[in-house]
């Protein structure tokens, strides 16, 4: 099991980074994913690729995270301004190899976080991870038509949020 964890942890961390708000949340999500793997290893069928099964568990963990974040946002209080009148940053600043990519990623995640959780998970997997809509539909138990319609609507909502951010 440990060999499997070491072999797949980087790929799973890269996938879950698309969902996580900060590095601490990422560590938690990776741990949660591998704990789910340990608990449900009996349901893995040997005729299916392990990496594919693992990615499916990670994607479900990411979607559950989106749902938890949506609930938290609903009940969260407004950030308290400090002495300078500025609100403290919501997420910790993690070291990035490419600061421009990190800034873009953070901005996109903030926009995605304002969508319904399932839309957030769908667009995250489709746009950032390059998953096919059919695969996402199978993953979350949606029909192909329902997935396409949901993706179209979610993209519209995301574009609208982005336009609002662009306009002063």
């Amino acid at each position, binding site marked *: 099991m440990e060999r499997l*964890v070491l072999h797949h942890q980087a790929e799973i961390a890269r996938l879950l980074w698309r969902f996580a708000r900060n590095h601490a949340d990422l560590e938690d999500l990776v741990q949660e994913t591998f*704990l789910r793997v340990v608990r*449900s290893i009996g349901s893995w069928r040997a005729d299916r690729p392990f990496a594919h099964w693992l990615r499916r568990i990670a994607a479900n963990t990411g979607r559950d995270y989106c749902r938890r974040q949506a609930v938290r946002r609903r009940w969260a209080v407004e950030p308290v301004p400090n002495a300078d009148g500025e609100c403290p940053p919501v997420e910790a600043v993690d070291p990035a190899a490419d600061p421009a990519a990190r800034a*873009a990623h953070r901005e996109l995640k903030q926009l995605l976080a304002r969508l319904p959780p399932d839309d957030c998970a769908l667009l995250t997997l489709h746009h950032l991870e390059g998953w096919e809509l059919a695969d996402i539909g199978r993953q979350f138990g949606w029909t192909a038509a329902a997935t396409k319609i949901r993706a179209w609507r979610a993209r519209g909502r995301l574009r609208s949020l982005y336009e609002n951010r662009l306009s002063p």
Partner: protein
Amino acid sequence: MKPSPEESARALSALVQRARGDTPAPIDTAALLRVVRQAPAVEAGWWSDFAASFDTRAVFTTCSAGAGASLAVAGWLAWDAWQNVLPWAQLLSDPTLFS
């Protein structure tokens, strides 16, 4: 001034492309291995085997909810029928009825 839909769509695509280039810092593998080592063993049993026979958790949850709802309706019907039968049963069990 609000940008045109084409402009914002292009800008959003560019943002997505830039965001794809972001990679996370390495995670703490020592802590991850510790957690995995301490994880409880797989609980074998008929319930876990039964749950694992479903493709997704959503299917399992839906089937469980359906079974629960059917059970509730059946229970209510049985209780209702018993309430109708009870007075007759009490009447017929009265020893003075046919004396």
